[in-house]
């Protein structure tokens, strides 16, 4: 048989990859698969959830057991687009990054808690996830969404950025892998293993890392995280896991030279609060990174590249420090290639501002690679 225009299918079901929105979770994917194939939601739910259906897998197997809510957490406007990113199921994402609406866990009509078995009320042309009790749609629209509208959600890049961060952390940071793996998570003194509260605390810890690295929003409850770390620090059993992120690994290899940022006084400027900032690419990025990190953790015994997972907060700070330093170094290289004056560069300003905004706590502790303050012509605008 010849099929010239292949009928878009996936394992015997009508399916177009274009119908899947980036970072979409299994909940809305299952709804679409069911609708496209005139099947019951329950018929395809387990199949979609279990069969590594694209990226839904991460929201399912990796993250859900530890960090996910057992209720569907949804944004009403995203539901109108039949879009439910797996990110919504993670604790501490309380608002939709696209619409800024709170994530809901109950029906807005009858207040019944959401479940993974919605009333899918199949219609011929549209998909509309509904409350199983009152059959009202979870979304704001009554009409549902036809096939023609599937696959596009305005602002999805915001979700994608957050999901990238989570995936990166899941894959690249031993600490987070440990955090996500409940078997490896030793019970803390006062919190019983498997306790719901402990899981929430793990979620908070993950969110803390995410927020520091990617600026994923502000959560007032983060104030508790510091206490949490103080509590668990040093209590986790097992050998320490060293930080092997490639970029930082290279930095670590060069730390043995014993150089510090003070050895580059001609290529740095010293802001009023005392932390040197490179203005020349001659200053190695790793030297800058160590300087940033040490500024955050005065008195920490040992170097930042050999931090055990027990000190998750320190490790997260080291990731951020190395990223700032590398970005800063790249910008200097670009400016030098263009013959521009680094100290007056808008590019460096923007790096500075971006990181300061993302890492609010850093400025609280006194470090900010603010170049403005080192520029004698702009002293009036210095803000620390």
């Amino acid at each position, binding site marked *: 048989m010849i099929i010239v225009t292949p009928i*878009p299918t996936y394992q015997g079901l009508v399916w177009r990859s274009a119908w899947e929105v980036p970072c979409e979770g299994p909940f809305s994917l299952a709804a679409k698969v069911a609708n496209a194939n005139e099947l019951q939601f329950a018929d395809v739910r387990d199949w979609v959830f279990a069969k590594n259906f694209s990226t839904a897998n991460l929201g399912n197997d990796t993250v859900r057991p530890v960090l996910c809510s057992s209720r569907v957490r949804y944004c009403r406007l995203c539901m109108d687009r039949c879009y439910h990113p797996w990110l919504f199921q993670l604790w501490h994402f309380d608002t939709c990054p696209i619409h800024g609406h709170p994530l809901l866990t109950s029906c807005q009509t009858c207040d019944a808690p959401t479940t993974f078995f919605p009333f899918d009320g199949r219609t011929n042309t549209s998909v509309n996830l509904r409350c199983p009790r009152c059959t009202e749609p979870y979304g704001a629209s009554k009409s549902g969404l036809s096939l023609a509208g599937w696959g596009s959600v305005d602002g999805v890049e915001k979700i994608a950025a957050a999901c990238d961060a989570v995936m990166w952390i899941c894959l690249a940071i031993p600490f987070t892998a440990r955090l996500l793996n409940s078997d490896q998570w030793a019970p803390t003194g006062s919190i019983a293993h498997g306790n719901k509260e402990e899981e929430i605390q793990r979620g908070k810890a993950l969110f803390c890392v995410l927020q520091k690295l990617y600026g994923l929003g502000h959560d007032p409850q983060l104030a508790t995280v510091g206490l949490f770390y103080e509590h668990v620090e040093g209590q986790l059993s097992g050998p320490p896991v060293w930080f092997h992120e490639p970029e930082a690994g290279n930095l670590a290899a060069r730390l043995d030279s014993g150089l510090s940022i003070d050895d580059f006084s001609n290529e740095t400027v010293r802001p009023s609060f005392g932390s040197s900032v490179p203005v020349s690419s001659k200053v190695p990025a790793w030297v800058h990174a160590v300087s940033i990190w040490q500024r955050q953790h005065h008195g920490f015994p040992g170097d930042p590249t050999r931090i055990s997972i027990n000190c998750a907060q320190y490790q997260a700070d080291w990731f951020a420090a190395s990223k700032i330093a590398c970005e800063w170094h790249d910008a200097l290289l670009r400016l030098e290639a263009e013959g521009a004056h680094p100290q007056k560069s808008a590019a460096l300003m923007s790096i500075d501002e971006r990181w300061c905004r993302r890492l609010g706590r850093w400025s609280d502790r006194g470090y900010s690679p603010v170049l403005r303050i080192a520029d004698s012509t702009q002293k009036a605008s210095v803000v620390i």
Partner: protein
Amino acid sequence: MTNTTMHRDQLRQVALSSGAERDAYLLNHPISMRPVEVLTRSIEEAFLQVVTAVKYRQLGLCFQAPFRLGKTTAACIIASNISQVVPHLAVHLMVAKTHEKVSERAFYGDACDSFMLTNEGTAEERSGRLRKAIVAACQAVDGNQFLLMIDEGQNWGEKEWEWFRDTSNVLLKDSKITLTTVTFGDMRLGAMRGRFQRTRQDLWARFMMKSTVFSGIRHKEDLAYFLSQLDNAEKYEYPAGSGISFSEFFFPLAYSAGWRLENQTDAIWKAFERAASKVCRKVDELGMQWVSDTVVDFLISRTLGDFEGFNCGPDDWDNSVAASRFVESLV
């Protein structure tokens, strides 16, 4: 010498020299496959009619012809190539099946099978799945027209055409998708068409109003055209990228000396006439099966006799015509 020409020369040498690699190419040669998908005048004419039907969004067109004339090959070739001429067109080829007990569920189950979809569920669910597959296919090509080629169309009866009409109606109403059907069938399709014209004008007008008799090889010019395709490496080459035409593959030395299959048109036609005369028949039209079987038999069985001065006599073609069982088809 560029890499491309080097590659082509190496490929030619390997494919045309005796050895295990040539044997492997021989086994997989398109001419050894069935059906032999080579363009004929009739297919070309049918292709143009289908293109016209699609361009003007006609709902139905049908071709009828006696058995073994090349309808299935035509459907395959048209389905394979029409997207190059009509962009944003989704195409599918399905074979109509008969069932002892006609039911809507079985009908849509066949359709789902053809679309490689699960056939779970009720008739309604299956038909919904079929419609959504069509919508998905149209979305994939950024279009709103679906061409469904139906082979063995005589196997469907009034009920099946009714269900299919309903599917077409819903697609147009809900998704603004035009479904154009091109049906190939034997002479029973013509009879059904006549019956529908009298009793079911709705079905007749939608699917069968425009009807054409599909032809095989009608005269020497048709035969010459078909044979010329086998000589033409630009249209049919094997192995891909070698620049070797089908006839050159089997007779490389003779081909290089100027021998061409197209020049055998008279000899082949006369061989068919001699065969027909044995059972007191005349050659009006040749079915593609007998023509292609004759040519394939000739190419494969005479390839060992290839040399620069190769030429074949009437006996060679008589033998190949006999091998095609053409005479038996006339009795």
